[in-house]
Each structure stands twice: as C-alpha cells, then as structure tokens.
C-alpha cells in the first residue's frame, strides 16, 4: 500500500490504523495483516508499533491487537516472527496480566496455536520458536501455582472477608459501570486454563469450564446467580478501573477487595436463596448509580497490584476448624456466618428470620476472633463504608467469651493473704493460676519486669531499681563486669578448660551468688590473687591460690603432709582455687602446714622431721577465704 515510504511514516500510518481497531473485527485484522505483508521492509518498525500498541491500549482492545500479531506471524511469517518474537514474552505477559479471564482463555488458545505449525503450511516448524512459547507458558504456570497457593493461604482470611460483603450503602459515590459488565468479566472466576500447567494436568483444550459456571445442585438459584454475578462483575470491573487510576487510594483498594471477596462467595454457591436475594438487593442498589464507562482508564497506567489472584476458589475451600469452634451459635449474626462458612447447602431454619439484619452480619465475623479488629474492616469503617456504630452487641462480649466477668486488662485485687511488698512495690500481685486467669492481659504487671527497674546495665541489659539500694547493686554489678573483663583478657592468654561438674553434696551445699552481692573481701582477694605469694602476708585467714593449670604441679601433693590439694570452685574468683594453700617459691603448701612448720623458722627449707601433726593439720575450713565465704552463705533468718 504505502511501500517506498520512510519507516516512520509507515509506522505512523500503521499506528493510526491499529488505533481504529477496537473490536475483534476480522476485516480490519486481515487488512492490517495485508499492510504488514506489503511492508516487510519496515517489519521492524511495524513490529515495534504493534508492541507499543498492545502495551498501551486498554485491556479490552488488547485481544484484537494480539490477534493482529497472530494473523501476521501466521500469514506473513518472517521477518515478523523474528521481530515480534523478540519481545513476545513481555508483550504477551503484559497483556495477560491486565485482561480478564475470558480474554485470558482466548490468549491461552492463541498461545496454543503458536506452538503448532501454521495450519495448511508446508513448514513443520511451530509459529513461534518453542523457546518463546515455553517461557511464556512457564511463567503462566508459575503464576497459576502461586495464585493457588495464595488462595490456600488466604483461605481462612477469606472466611472472614466472605460474609462481610453485605455491602453497606456508602457506595453511592463510587462510579460504577454495570453496563460494562459483560465486557469486563472479572478475571477472578477461574485460573486461566492453560494447556500445560501442572495445576490442571494438561487438558488438551483450553476451554475448561470456569468454576463459576459449574452446574450447581441448587438449580433454582441459577437465575439469581447468573444475573447477580454479572452485576458483581460489573462492580468489580468498575472498581478495578478506578483502582487502576488510583492505585494508591486505599479505599478503592479495599472496595475492590471486598467485591472480589463477595464474588468468591458467590462462586462457592453456598449461599442460601434468601442470602442471595439480600446480596442481590445490595448489589442492585449500588449498580445504577454509575454513569462513567469503565473502559475509560488511561491504559498506559499499569496497576501496581491488580489483584487477579482471588481466582480459583476451590470448590471445597479448606475452612479452618478452629474458626468453627470459635463460633458461638448463640448470636444470630454468628449463625449466619456459620452457614456461610460451613457451606451448608441448606440453611438452618433460623436464618431467614434474621436476614433483614444482614448489615450487622457484615461486621460480625471478626467478633469471635481474639485478634483486634480486622484492619480491612476498620479501614472500611473509617471510610464510612461500613456502619461504624452498628457493631453487633454480641461482638464485644464474645471477645472474651470464656470469662465474661473479667474485663480485659483488669488486675484482680483480692484481699492479700500475705504482705508481698517484694519487688513490684506499686503493683499488688495476685494472679490466679488457672487457664482463664492467665489469658487476661495485664499490661501493668509487665512494668514490674521493665519500668519498675529503670536502672539498666548497658552491658548485659540487667535491670536494677532506681533506688539507692539498686544503685549500689548496680555499682557492684558494674564492678563485676569490670573485673570479669579484666580477667577475661588475662585468661585469653592461658588455656582454659571446662571444669568437672560438682557432685550432689556440693551442689546442694552450693549457693548461687549474684554478681551484685556484697563481697567484702573482694578487694583483698583480688590483690592476693594477683600475687599468689603475697597471700601469706594476709595471714592464714585468707590463704588460697588459684589451682595451677600445670598438670604436674596440680598433681604434686603438699610437700609437708603429702596430701593432694583439692580444687574447689569459687564463684567470686570465677576459677578453681585451692583452699588453705600457699605458694612458696615453686612449691605449693597447705597454708596451715606451712604455718605450723614455719612458726619457728622463716624458711620452709628449715623443715625437719615430721610436722606437728599431733595437733592435726587443720585445713582452713572455718576461715573466710573467698570461696568458702561465698559458697556457704549465711542464711537470712
């Protein structure tokens, strides 16, 4: 037609022609194909134009445009196959994302033909190289799987959402477009029925029946449902379009979600006739308000998160059992909910009588859950989309159904048995040990763990009271940190090892010592520990040394009495020590032995004969060397 022209002119021309293509018009499509065929030298430009057009055109016009592509590659082939194939993944997926489920099915069918040779052609190669179609297919499979999983995860949540959809009249303001409904069936009714998904086990044809239209046992509902579904579809598509325009507006988002949830319920087809009627009334109340056509949106505007995953409600939704258990059949609202969630094909007889109260029902479902109000509901309510004050009277009480006499947060003050002024001075502590009592939140008691002890150690997070005593304790505690750190740097140089565990007797006798307790001789012991030899100067009262690490030295008995030294664990020193020991030169003696031997002479070498063992070598049992003092704490009266 316009061969010989410059590429961009051809492209411009082609673009204009494409824009006229709004419906699946065979004539127009074949015309466009012919143009493409006659301008193969501009194939690249035309391909780009096609891609751009498909990307930017409104969802409703994507299918015809893609049909143009289909027609071109099948009738013309190279070089278009090459050029269009390059970006086909993006083009296809982009379109697929935005279109509704019926269009998706068409796209699926089209994709299927791309994997086969052109009908009637001698060429046995598929329309598009297999790697292109495969990548698209894989992506679709993934998306479907993800949607399914998401669906399952949301299973429980949907239960809540499901019955919330008795939409209140606050929607008058929203532009809705029921007349567009047939053109914009929601993409939610079914997973796009691909041919190769692991989900659906490769059905040979792409025309799997949408779940929505599965024959239902309740035939008399059909009339209701189909029209109702159409109406809902219309509302959804309107909401969807608005969402596309205002993706950041939470109210739009929520409305869309609520509608999709409603659709989910409809698809389950578990609603009773009466409930359906009610839903229909609500929907029809909403519908006529709209005037703005839905296909308006600037289609270049790709929704950030269009929500096509609400799809595929499996016919047997896995409703959580615990939820059902939570249901308290006493309240009417919950009864309705029970019917909705348990999927009873027939309603309990009470239901019809309460149907006029449907709006209440809209906020009831979350009542039995212990969680705070569903954020969606809260948001809807804040937007005025839900009746704010119409919370069912049962809701508040059913939050704590098991112990209705106790207001949450309340601490029960009962006559004190004792006077436990303990650590939580202000908070009188009286919590009953039973299952009901321990479920009551008592935030004020948490302060006893935190705020009451505001003085916090920066190193280990330990807390102290802000009192004088607390400060003292903290000071000692910080001392302990300081000493320990010092000793750790010292200790890093020598080899350390795990100690033996204590035996039963020692364990029973041992006393845990906090790092904040008064250790009067701390200073002196540290000094004496610092210089082992200097211990003697302190007199027999505090004679001890660290158990030597050297194995031979450790196994060497006291040269005087030939008894071995016994290692004991000192909490204070955090080390094994030898009580009643003194190191003189390279040898370690029992301090008592040494004292006895040296009481006449200053040097141990002056030792002659046997020591004065008649009096009995007295180990420093009663003396207050640090380990002893620490281990056997005097018990408070």
């Amino acid at each position: 037609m316009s061969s010989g022209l410059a590429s961009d002119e051809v492209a411009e021309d082609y673009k204009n022609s494409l824009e006229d293509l709004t419906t699946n018009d065979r004539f127009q499509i074949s015309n466009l194909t012919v143009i493409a065929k006659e301008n193969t030298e501009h194939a690249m430009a035309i391909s780009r134009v096609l891609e751009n057009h498909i990307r930017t055109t409104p969802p409703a016009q994507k299918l015809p445009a893609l049909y143009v592509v289909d027609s071109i590659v099948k009738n013309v082939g190279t070089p278009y196959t090459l050029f269009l194939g390059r970006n086909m993944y993006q083009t296809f997926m982009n379109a697929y994302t935005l279109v509704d489920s019926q269009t998706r099915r068409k796209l699926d069918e089209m994709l299927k033909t791309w994997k086969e040779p052109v009908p009637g052609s001698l060429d046995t190669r598929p329309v598009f190289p297999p790697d292109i179609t495969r990548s698209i297919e894989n992506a679709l499979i993934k998306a479907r799987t993800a949607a399914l999983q998401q669906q399952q995860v949301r299973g429980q949540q949907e239960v809540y959402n499901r019955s919330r959809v008795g939409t209140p009249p606050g929607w008058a303001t929203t532009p809705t477009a029921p007349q567009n409904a047939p053109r914009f069936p929601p993409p939610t009714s079914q997973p796009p029925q691909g041919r190769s998904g692991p989900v659906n086990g490769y059905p040979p044809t792409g025309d799997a029946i949408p779940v929505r239209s599965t024959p239902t046992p309740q035939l008399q509902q059909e009339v209701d449902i189909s029209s109702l579904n159409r109406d809902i579809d219309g509302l959804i598509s309107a909401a969807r379009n608005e969402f596309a325009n205002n993706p950041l507006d939470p109210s739009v988002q929520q409305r869309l979600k609520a509608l999709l949830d409603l659709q989910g319920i409809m698809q389950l087809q578990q609603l009773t006739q009466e409930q359906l009627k009610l839903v229909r009334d609500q929907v029809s109340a909403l519908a006529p308000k709209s005037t703005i056509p839905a296909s308006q949106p600037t289609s270049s505007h790709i929704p950030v998160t269009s929500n096509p995953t609400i799809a595929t409600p499996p016919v047997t939704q896995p409703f959580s059992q615990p939820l059902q258990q939570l249901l308290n059949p006493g309240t009417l609202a919950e009864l309705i909910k029970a019917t909705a969630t348990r999927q009873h094909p027939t309603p309990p007889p009470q239901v019809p009588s309460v149907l006029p109260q449907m709006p209440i029902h809209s906020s009831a479902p979350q009542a039995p859950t212990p969680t705070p109000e569903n954020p969606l509901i809260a948001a809807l309510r804040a937007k005025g989309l839900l009746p704010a004050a119409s919370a069912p009277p049962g809701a508040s009480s059913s939050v704590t159904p098991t112990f209705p006499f106790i207001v949450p947060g309340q601490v029960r003050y009962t006559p004190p048995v004792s006077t436990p002024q303990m650590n939580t001075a202000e908070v009188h502590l009286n919590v009953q040990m039973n299952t009901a009592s321990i479920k009551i939140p008592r935030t004020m008691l948490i302060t006893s763990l935190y705020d009451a002890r505001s003085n916090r150690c920066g190193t280990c997070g330990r807390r102290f009271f802000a009192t004088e005593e607390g400060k003292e304790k903290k000071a000692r505690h910080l001392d302990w940190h300081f000493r320990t750190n010092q000793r750790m740097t010292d200790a890093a140089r020598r080899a350390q090892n795990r100690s033996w565990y204590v035996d039963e007797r020692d364990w029973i006798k041992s006393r845990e010592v906090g790092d904040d307790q008064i250790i009067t001789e701390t200073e002196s012991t540290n000094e004496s520990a610092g210089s082992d030899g200097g211990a003697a100067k302190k007199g027999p009262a505090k004679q001890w040394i660290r158990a030597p690490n050297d194995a031979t030295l450790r196994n060497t008995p006291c040269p005087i009495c030939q008894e071995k030294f016994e290692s004991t664990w000192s909490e204070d020193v955090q080390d094994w020590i030898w009580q009643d020991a003194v190191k003189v030169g390279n040898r370690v003696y029992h301090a008592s032995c040494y004292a006895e031997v040296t009481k006449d002479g200053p040097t141990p070498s002056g030792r002659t004969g046997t020591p004065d063992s008649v009096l009995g070598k007295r180990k420093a049992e009663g003396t207050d060397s640090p380990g002893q003092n620490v281990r056997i704490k005097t018990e408070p009266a």
Partner: protein
Amino acid sequence: MSLPGLELTQPSAEREFVPAPPSQINLSPGSEWRFEVAFGTAVRVKLETGTAELFGTELAPSQTYTFSGTKAAIYTWHGCTLEVSAGDAVSGIDGMPATATAGRGGYGAGGCQSEYIAEETPMVEYANVHFALETLRNEAKATGKDGPRVLILGPENAGKTSLSKILTAYAVKVGRQPVVVNLDPTEGMLSVPGTLTATAFRAMLDVEEGWGSSPMSGPSAVPVKLPLVYFYPMVNPLEAEGSVYRPIVSRLALSVMGRMAEDEDARETGVIVDTPGILSQSRAGALEMINHIVTEFSITTILVIGSERLYSLMMKNYDNKPSSSASAAASDERISVVKLSKSGGCVDRDAAFMKAVRESQIRTYFFGNPVSSTASSALSLSASTNVTLSPHAQHLDFNGLALYNYTTSSAEDDQADEDDYDPAQLTTGESFLPGGDNDAEWAAQRSENVSALPGILLSAANESAPATAVGNALVPLKKVLTPAPSTLANTLLAITNCSPTSNVAEIRDASTMGFLYVADVDSERGKIRVLAPVGGRVPARALVWGKRWPAEVVGLVG
C-alpha cells in the same frame, strides 16, 4: 510485572550468594521477630531502640548479639527497632567439617534462613504464668511454705523449653532463684544431650547460648551456672519400661529437695521442670512416668502446652488434688493444671537440625563457644561469651576402666552389641532368645555366661551380696569387657561420681562429674585415646558409655 507469583521468584534469585546488608526491623509492641539461623552461618542482632527480650532475657541496648544454629524469637513488650546483619560464616574449630547446612546463607534479613514478624504470640499467657508463680512465691515467702513446683508438659516442638527459659528468665529478673530441672535427654541444658540436670539460676541467662555455660577454669562474661548432672544415655525415657529413667529422676528430685531444704532462695522460688515431648504422647507408660515426676518433685503446677488431650487427662488426674509434698496435708497445697497456647513460632526442628544442635552442645562442652564473633569481641564491653576451651587428649588403658553400658534396647540391637565386642558370646546361643530385653532372661543369661566364661565376665551383679544381686539384676547396666569395642570411637563416656567397684544400681544413680570423648580405639593394644575436659589423670571412677545416645559425634577431634 505484576502477575502474581512472577515477582516472587525473581528477587530471591538475585539476592542469592550476596551477603545481606544490615536491615532494620521495627517491631510494634507485643509482636516478635522470629528467625532461624543455620549452623555454620551467623547473624548479628543489635537492639537500637526500645526494649526486647529473647525468651524472657532482655537484650542490652546497642550490644551486638551473634546467633548461629538457632531458631528463636525476639519479643518486645514496648516496641523496638532491631538491626540485623550477617555475621561471619563460622568455620569449625580444629578444621572440623562444616555441618551439612553450612555455607548456605538464607535469604532473610542478615542472612537468616527464615525470618518474619509475628503479631500473635502467647507471651501474655506466659507472662501471666510468671505473675501467677510470683503470687505463689510471695505467699511462700510470707508463710514459710515451699515455692511452686512447675511441671511443663507438651508434645515435641511445642515450646516447652522456650517456656521454661521465659519463666526462668523472668524469675531471675525479679531477683528470684529458680531451680530448673531438665528431664529431656534429647537436648542438654548446660550440658551434653543425654543428661538430666538441675541448676539453680540466679544470674541472667545467656542470650546467645540459650541457658549459659557450666563452670570453666576461666572467667565468663555471663556468670556460669552450676548444674547437677545425671547421665541417661537413651532417647526415650520409657526405655526398659522406665526402669532406668525412673530411679534417676527420683535421685535428681532428691537432690533438688535437698537443695531446697537448705537454700532459702531456692525454696521460695521453687522448681521448674522441663520434660521430654515423648512423655506427652500417648505411649504406654508415659502417664505413669508423668505421675512419677509429679510425685517425686511434689509438683504444684502443671502447665500443658499445645495438647488438649493431655490437658484434659491432667485435669482429670491432678487438678485440685493435693500435691505430694510432705506438708501438703497441713497446708492444703493443691495442684493446679493450666493449659497454655502453643506459640505459632514453634517450628519443627528436623532430625538434621537436632543432630547439629546435639553436636554443637557436645562440641561446646569440650571446646567452648564455637561462634567467634570478631566484631563483638572487638567491642570493649562485649556481651559475647565466646571462650575457647582446650580439652586434654590422653591415652587410657582400656583394661583399667570400669566402663558400663546400658543393654536395654531391642534384641537386634543387643545382638549387634555383642557382635561388636565379644564374638565369643555369639556362640552361646543368644541369638535364639526371642525377647532380649526381658529382665529375667537377662539375669539368666548373665549367669549362664559367667559359667561359660569364668573370670572374664565380671558382672557386678554376681559380685555383690545376694540381696542386692536381685535388685541389680534388674538394672540393665553391664560392664563392657575387653577388648575395647571399636564402636567406642566417637562416642561419649560419662564419668560418674561413683567408685569403679560400686554395684550397678549405684552407678546408674550416680551423678556425673564430666564426660570423655573417645577419639580413637586401639583394640590390639587395649588403649583408647580420649579427650578429657580437664587435664590430669582421668579420675578412677565408674564410666558409663553413651553408646546409643548421644551416639556418635564424628570429627570432634581432627
């Protein structure tokens, strides 16, 4: 592309093998951050603002905590901000092979295998249990009664140990000193797996290490805890109809009661008993064992997590019944049974993970904290607890050892045992016995063997006085004879506080002073090479072989 599912896969692929940058985690009040860190990787967590606690133990502000090989949760009552960053990959000490999971960082913040924020936690319940216990403790203090003795029951992975940590940490926080008893041999507390322990806690729990550390020759940044340890080298408490577990529990309870009688703080605060999950499954004998524990520890409070069935059973059996304590009648002390929710954060810890935990516990016993967090130790005030310990390797003459082994398992296993270390016994027709674990048969067999192999088999049962021999015959503890079985390699030997010539009942009941790790067995020369925590001669005590549990730990020594 906004098609659902598509965007899910792409980012993670990009992030693979890229060290995760430090990320901020904001927790609203009452929520918790749950995270899993694989063995071999480390994650650093720093509390930037607010307050946070890990199983009840508060994190210090601005301190860097390093976690490795853990599944835990950081909870906040007041809201907080955490900074999470990837730690150094942890390489093993002494060139030990990295565990199977090593080297595979997760995709979560800081390289966590998995991490997320949970809004719903049972912490309110758990804290209330603490306050209820505090109420009882105040009462005990005022009236001179004993503090509450708490028994925690629930199936595997229901959060029993986490709950006992929380209760312990809260009690410590308010200045109490609870005695915590671990009756779960699958996981050690301050010791290796296969131990039943009791420990009085006064000092803070170790945020990084779970419970803390038992005494070492050197200092420790977090005060060490002093556990009383009993060795029970089997997974199942009901092994041999509980004939081994039961007396050890009794003995442990006796020690705890002794401590409470003398230690005023312990008496006021009471006891917290953690149990193996297997007791909460409907196994034959499990209820009897629970009853045994309830009786021995004079339990006053039974907490049941995550099991309605068990809860109703416990309600029926114990609720409002008088406790078994001696003073119960006088003071009208009654048992209360409380049901607790299981945390949604409880994850199944698969066999591989549990094995890694066990290995890590054993390694820590000998070598100290395996996590070397360079960054935190560089800080002047470090909360890190990494201490490298140097165990001593030495050769022991197998003939000189009094090594005992439990012979309680199924016939086939025993057969394998015999096969391993005494081929001669194979010919005595043991393989024809249908029920190897029958006590009577064992006794009969033993005497048979003695007559068949005089002088070689030195069963303590036959040495003792006839009166005790009857009792001992029921103790499925048997001396391991020369030559040293090759299966000794890579297993643990417990050194009991019990002389080598004691009878088997005493050995069974004795507390443990430590463990040896058998690195090598030289059957021909009759020598074994062992790793001992403490240098010097290995004390001449009766040893018990942890053959079946905690089983083999390969590669502790290179």
